[in-house]
């Protein structure tokens, strides 16, 4: 579903990604962990071209992103992204946040977009918040709306960049629950998170990144119970 080969990314002189190779199969849930600054966000952002890779190949569902003939907006519409800071549109209600892209990008009719919006709000447990603006929602509720907004484009892949790390602890569970449901429904997901419980429960594979490289990868059990790399060991001892 996602295929990344030799991905390099530099910001000026700063080399952030130094050759990432990674393949994600359909329905697979990949959890990315690693110390701050190791390039996890940059890696995710390259997958939907929010950052221009310096070198390498990325393709999604067989479509190469770096091919100049590829319409990047079409690809992005199929790759949902959920941000650490939610990034809901503050001037739009929860329902409008969800409906905007289906209306403008997919050109759905207003009625179709709204019924899609309502069904997604129901899915994330916020049916009663359709007309509420983001500033009236708690962090956990905002993040659930953001997930619904991404799902509204019916993406083939969902990318999550530390979706729970800006949340108060009591709200982490409700967001993770929505993500677990998605995983069980067979969504292909790449999730940057330090929620080890989530990784164990629904993660098919865990990737440990350090200094712009994938240093170790394997099933959650392999990585968490039997880490080989020293930096991974040090990292795990800090967060577990």
């Amino acid at each position, binding site marked *: 579903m996602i295929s990344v080969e030799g991905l390099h990314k530099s910001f000026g002189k700063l080399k952030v990604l130094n050759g990432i190779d990674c393949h994600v199969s359909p329905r697979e849930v990949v959890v990315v962990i690693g110390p701050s600054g190791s390039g996890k966000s940059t890696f995710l952002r390259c997958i939907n071209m929010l950052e221009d890779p310096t070198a390498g190949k990325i393709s999604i569902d067989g479509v190469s992103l770096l091919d100049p003939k590829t319409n990047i907006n079409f690809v992005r*519409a199929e790759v949902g992204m959920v941000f650490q800071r939610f*990034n*809901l549109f503050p*001037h739009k209600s929860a329902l409008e946040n969800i409906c905007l892209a289906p209306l*403008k990008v997919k050109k759905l009719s207003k009625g179709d977009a709204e019924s899609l919006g309502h069904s997604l709000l129901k899915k994330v447990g916020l049916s009663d918040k359709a007309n509420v603006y983001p500033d009236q929602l708690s962090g956990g509720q905002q993040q659930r709306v953001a997930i619904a907004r991404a799902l509204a484009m019916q993406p083939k892949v969902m990318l999550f960049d530390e979706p729970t790390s800006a949340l108060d602890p009591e709200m982490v569970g409700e967001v993770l629950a929505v993500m677990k449901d998605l995983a069980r429904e067979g969504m292909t997901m790449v999730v940057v998170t330090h929620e080890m419980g989530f990784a164990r429960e629904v993660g098919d594979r865990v990737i440990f990144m350090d200094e712009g490289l994938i240093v170790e990868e394997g099933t959650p059990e392999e990585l968490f119970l039997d880490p080989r790399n020293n930096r991974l060991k040090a990292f795990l001892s800090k967060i577990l």
Partner: protein
Amino acid sequence: MEVVIKTFPVMLMGAAATLGVTLTSVAFGCIIGLIVGLARLSKKRSIKLAATAYVDFFRGTPLLVQIMIIYFALPLPQYFRDLQTFFVDRGIAPWFIESHMFPVFLAGVVACSLNSGAYIAEIFRAGVQSIERGQVEAARSLGMTAGQAMRYVILPQAFKRVIPPLGNEFIAMLKDTSLLSVIGFAELTRRGQLIVGQTYVALPVWFTVALLYLAMTFTFSRLVDYTERRLKTGD
């Protein structure tokens, strides 16, 4: 005092002309400002450079000189006269000016629009840049084009934030239109000059002129304060 009472209607007409030329100029200034402001944010270097040159010129030279250039140095008066005939023949000249004032009115509007366009461009640019990066990224990640993200996500939020500075620009322009008196446009200051010239009564007349300006600017600054407060609670 008698003079003031007798000439007050004339001064009011001047105030109406001041208001009219300001509203027209700031309206055109907003259109120019939106285009130039977005051009300043363009990735194309030539577009960005042209917009920057525009802003630098109109903010870096006195409005008085700009008015002079447009009225005297460019062969516009003839053109204005043609336009005047065009409008007046069709009976659509603005109500607040007499028809023979049309050429100077147009010159004034052109100069003030170009000038306020430069200031408003900076207001719009700052407004757009004040919207967090995450907003465009969220929009783009949903498959919107840069244009769609600008139109549906960035501009609606930016418009809210630029209302107070736009109000201030309006107030500044309202006062600056007094410079149009030099080309003989009968706005408030020019009316004052004419009255003083005819009656030799200076202080009460100028004082009344000042009060009329104050009445207009005060009303607008309260309006700006009010919208600013309302927007703060809604943001």
